[in-house]
């Protein structure tokens, strides 16, 4: 090989080789154990505690997981950016043939590589776990894109800050500033979500940030209807814009040329680089500003969540067809296939409860899972017991628990409390005062036969003073006098002491009157 050939070969710019070298020596790899620990304690444990539905689990990766990854990514990028100043190689590098910006860009790209790789590894763990547990649906990819772009943008923010202000304290200040900015955004996002109903919710740029903990409002989000990806698209636009601005900014600013290179940067001489950087900044600002304003136009739908009209696909508003999974024999219990892991627990809870009232007027033939806030049809008017994963009944059980926790006695008893209360209460279960004292007494007696305690949702029993059974006045209803918890308990005990046949025959004769509120506490045998 001749000297000329060697010179020609080495003069060629080889960004792939430079990037490979930077990736090999980047300190980002040393923070991977820390990221793994933070991921385990924040994202993994949170996701593992959620029901195994894809959209819920995906909410974790843009919630706390993204916050901690961006904080550490910004800090470590700022640290990396100060490398040339720290090692006092500014003068040495100023004499090289390459402009400072491409060199710095290679360092940034290597840091982004490690941070995004770590983030995607975390996503892979959560999605892998969900793939084993979920029984319906598939992974949403827009949140993954939003997270990856967010981590890259945080790297770029940290890197630009470190390049412009190469000091000892730059890295922690940037990390803490990113953390604080996230929390200020979370505070604003919490206030956006804190609305009584969907109609009163108004869009806000705060939607670009997850709420505290990142937990969605609806446990069935993305199950009956598609979860609209509009907000995730806006997040990608916003963070992509920030990324573009931060990458292009150092190419424009003379101060960004580190150390001794300030007087002789190629960046200043290369007009095309300046033009490209200016265009990049303009495009980035436009993308971020557009996303910011689009988020302000968002509207909350009760079924699909937040939607941005300009980005919304009307197909997302249509319900997703599904075939329910059912269990049980004579009394079939059906659930959405996404909640199939809970089916065993629901069926195990409802079968004995239905057996307790079988043969009475209005006993349902099956149980079905419904969607949204729609109240179930009143007992006696339907042959289907409808239950919603979104609504929390008097039993207090919730679908926010994992399938393993749903198999616990307390959860099954909550399901029984909901069913028995629905069965004996009629319309009053859905009205303001709640069940009448007579209905409560009968329900308590039936639940006692099942081994379930008094439902925590009964007002007389939920007051602290009523624990002794001496006080806790019933709020009463239009047709019934008030009663204390003690009186209700006494009536329930009396009714429970009847033989099964006597209890059954009394219920057969009076269940319609009991549901309508015509039966009072004194009429219970």
């Amino acid at each position, binding site marked *: 090989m001749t000297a000329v050939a060697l010179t020609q070969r080495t003069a060629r710019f080889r960004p792939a080789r430079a990037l490979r070298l930077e990736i090999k020596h980047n*300190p980002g790899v040393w*923070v991977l154990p*820390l990221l793994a*620990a*933070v991921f385990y*304690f*924040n994202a993994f*444990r*949170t996701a593992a505690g959620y029901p195994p539905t894809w959209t819920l689990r995906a909410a974790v990766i843009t919630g*706390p997981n993204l916050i*901690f990854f961006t*904080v*550490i990514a910004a*800090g470590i990028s700022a*640290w990396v950016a100060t490398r040339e100043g*720290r*090692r006092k190689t500014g003068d040495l590098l100023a004499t090289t043939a390459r402009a400072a910006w491409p060199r710095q860009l290679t360092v940034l790209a290597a840091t982004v590589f490690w941070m995004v790789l770590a983030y995607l590894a975390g996503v892979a763990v959560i999605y892998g776990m969900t793939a084993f547990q979920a029984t319906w649906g598939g992974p949403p990819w827009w949140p993954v894109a939003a997270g990856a772009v967010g981590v890259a943008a945080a790297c770029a923010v940290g890197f630009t800050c470190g390049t412009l202000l190469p*000091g*000892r*304290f730059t*890295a*922690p*200040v940037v*990390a*803490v500033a990113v*953390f*604080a900015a996230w*929390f*200020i955004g*979370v*505070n604003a996002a*919490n*206030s956006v979500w804190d609305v009584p109903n969907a109609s009163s919710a108004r869009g806000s740029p705060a939607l670009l940030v997850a709420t*505290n*903990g990142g937990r969605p409002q609806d446990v069935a989000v993305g199950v009956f209807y598609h979860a609209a990806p509009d907000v995730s698209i806006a997040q990608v636009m916003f963070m992509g814009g920030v990324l573009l601005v931060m990458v292009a900014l150092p190419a424009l600013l003379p101060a960004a040329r580190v150390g001794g290179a300030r007087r002789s940067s190629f960046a200043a001489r290369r007009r095309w680089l300046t033009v490209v950087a200016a265009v990049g900044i303009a495009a980035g600002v436009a993308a971020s500003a557009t996303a910011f304003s689009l988020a302000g136009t968002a509207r909350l739908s009760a079924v699909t969540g937040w939607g941005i009209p300009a980005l919304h696909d009307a197909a997302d508003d249509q319900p997703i067809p599904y075939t329910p999974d059912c269990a049980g024999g004579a009394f079939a219990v059906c659930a959405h296939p996404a909640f199939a892991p809970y089916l065993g627990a629901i069926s195990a809870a409802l079968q004995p409860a239905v057996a307790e009232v079988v043969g009475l007027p209005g006993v349902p033939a099956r149980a079905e899972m419904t969607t949204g806030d729609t109240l179930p049809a009143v007992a006696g008017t339907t042959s289907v017991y409808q239950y919603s994963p979104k609504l929390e009944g008097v039993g207090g059980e919730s679908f926010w628990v994992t399938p393993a926790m749903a198999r616990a006695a307390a959860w099954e008893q909550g399901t029984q409390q909901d069913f028995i209360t629905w069965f004996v209460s009629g319309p009053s279960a859905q009205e303001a005062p709640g069940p009448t004292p007579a209905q409560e007494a009968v329900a308590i007696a039936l639940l006692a036969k099942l081994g379930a305690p008094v439902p925590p949702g009964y007002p007389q029993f939920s007051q602290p003073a009523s624990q002794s059974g001496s006080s806790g006045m019933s709020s009463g209803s239009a047709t019934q006098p008030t009663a204390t918890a003690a009186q209700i308990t006494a009536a329930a005990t009396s009714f429970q002491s009847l033989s099964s046949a006597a209890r059954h025959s009394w219920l057969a004769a009076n269940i319609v009157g009991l549901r309508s509120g015509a039966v009072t506490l004194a009429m219970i045998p």
Partner: protein
Amino acid sequence: MTAVRTPPVPPAAPAVPAPPSQRLAAGARLTSLNLRSRRVPTALLALFLCAGALRAVQHWHLMNGGVLAQQGPMVIEAGAAAMVAMTTHSPFGEAERATGRWLPYLRLASALALTGIAIGALQLGVTGTSLPGGVLLLARNVIGVTGIGLLAALFTGGLLAWIGPIGYLGLAEYALNEAWRNPWTWPARPPADRGAWICAAIVFAAGLTAVTLRGPRTSLSD
């Protein structure tokens, strides 16, 4: 080669101790140089900036409501603790270690003083506002997280010591969200909780002792 007669070496003059005023001035200069080499003046500025940020957060209710009211100030407290830990870095490295016999004392005094100043500055920043947990929680958080930063400096060096406090912050935020009761996650415990105070004090004492005796890790690449 010719023999050269070397003149006899005169006996060394007996060492005359410097007068106390000169020794005091030398000590003050040594301390001043030490603090400046550790960027302590910049750290003080950063601490007061943290205090200002905490004041702004409390005044404008930028992070309030539920757990966030406690999580938000903790981020700034951890930032202040990270600043203290980062002042342990010396630009002179091994050469200074080999010659400076007063270094351990300077490291101890510097870390203690800066921790105290951090607590004082942050408390000054929130005077007149309702900081959740009050000064007790603030002091415990700063003390404990500074200890983590000092311990981190042993492994990462002073310049990367902020990694420790930020990493612990990740754990503590989760502990606050989940209402953990473990005293090692002291930010989630009540202000007067004895176990949390003991844990925070142990971590601080361990970090302080280690940094005093051993100093932060030094690396040629720093």
